């Protein structure tokens, strides 16, 4: 009597998914039949697939479809959110003045140093420049579309401003956590953040989300969850 091996899993799955035909199927079937545990596992795979095969073909109702399209219709610099309760989330606005942009942070390593993707064209900075005001809003608030794409690792002023924002959040974390990229951040750090917020800043043309930890902060593209920048903590 044959015992089950790791490679049998592939065979069992291939048979259950009906990926084998002809000789291949006969050979695989014989191999699986010779192993009682394999036979049991094949039955499990088939039972699960049969059950999943009964899934109804659901779709949006006409009302839901209309809501979705209405919600996706842009208004000047703003988007609707579907869930009304989200609007109740209090906005935490941290305004960072122009002054912070005139200093440099040469001691900070850039994203290039730590392997984060780099922005290659500074021209990707947004069309709304030279506005230097950045705002942080709590997880659910609306976002504007005026952002630059990619990392700002080569922009010392941007890094300084982001580090300042992170320090403020470390000192006074908001109650709400950001919606996006939590899984990705956890994969990167295996840590729960002190705070996480959607950030609206002229430095990014994409919506970004910042996860703040004790000794660093990570900024992700909120849509794709690509890591944009790593911001080391600085003394407040």
């Amino acid at each position, binding site marked *: 009597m044959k015992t089950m091996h790791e490679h049998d899993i592939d065979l069992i799955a291939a048979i259950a998914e009906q990926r084998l035909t002809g000789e291949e199927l006969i050979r695989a079937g014989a191999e699986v039949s010779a192993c009682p545990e394999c036979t049991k596992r094949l039955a499990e*795979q088939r039972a*699960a697939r049969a059950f*999943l095969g009964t899934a109804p073909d659901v779709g949006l109702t006409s009302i839901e479809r209309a809501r979705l399209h209405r919600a996706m219709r*842009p208004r000047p610099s703003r*988007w609707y959110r579907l869930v009304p309760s989200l609007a109740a989330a209090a906005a935490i606005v941290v305004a960072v003045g122009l002054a912070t942009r005139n200093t440099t942070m040469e001691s900070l390593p850039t994203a290039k140093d730590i392997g984060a993707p780099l922005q290659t064209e500074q021209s990707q900075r947004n069309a709304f420049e030279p506005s230097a005001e950045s705002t942080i809003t709590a997880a659910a608030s609306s976002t504007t579309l005026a952002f630059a794409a990619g990392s700002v690792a080569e922009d010392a002023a941007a890094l300084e401003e982001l580090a300042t924002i992170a320090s403020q959040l470390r000192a006074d974390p908001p109650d709400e956590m950001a919606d996006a990229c939590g899984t990705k951040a956890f994969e990167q750090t295996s840590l729960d953040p002190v705070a996480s917020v959607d950030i609206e800043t002229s430095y990014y043309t*994409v919506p970004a989300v910042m996860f703040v930890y004790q000794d660093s902060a990570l900024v992700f593209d909120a849509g794709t*969850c690509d890591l944009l920048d790593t911001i080391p903590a600085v003394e407040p």
Partner: protein
Amino acid sequence: MVSDDKLLSAFLDGDAASFDELMSRHEDAIFRLCLRMLGSREDAMDATQDTFLTLYRKGKQFSGKSKLSTWLYRVAINTCHDHLRRRKRRQTVPIPEGIDPPDTAVQDAFDSVEVRPDILTALKAIPEEFRGAIVLIDIEGLSLDTAADALSVPIGTVKSRTYRGRRLLAEYLGNFPSPSEHQRDEDHA
């Protein structure tokens, strides 16, 4: 029919109607995936909106290496993971993980109403990483490579996740009598 790629190009050139057309083509599939990942229509609506918002904002970064539908699946899966993670964080009463052995006392009450869980209930019993794989492969009918692309993992990982997901599902279903067994028990009662 105009291809997705051409519609996306037209949208990026400023044609808003092309975006509407792209949404109309893919919104049901994305909503269905989100519904099966999240288990609630309201959450699925929210995740679907977030997915298309990403298309609106990030469409210009779509490389065209995969099909647009695959790229949308990937965004939707990431969005659903974020929703689930947020939901877990907000739970105040921990829900035990894993599959419990049948509880006959509870089972009696359950039998009087229904003999088999619905798909959404059963999917909720499967850890989300396995759930995504079996939804894409066994319900949506994606190929292994397309599912691997959508899940951003190697094909081997998709195979392993679908296998383990089905095993867990079969064990979960094993906790419920099949309709025929249920009928037989009633006949003997």
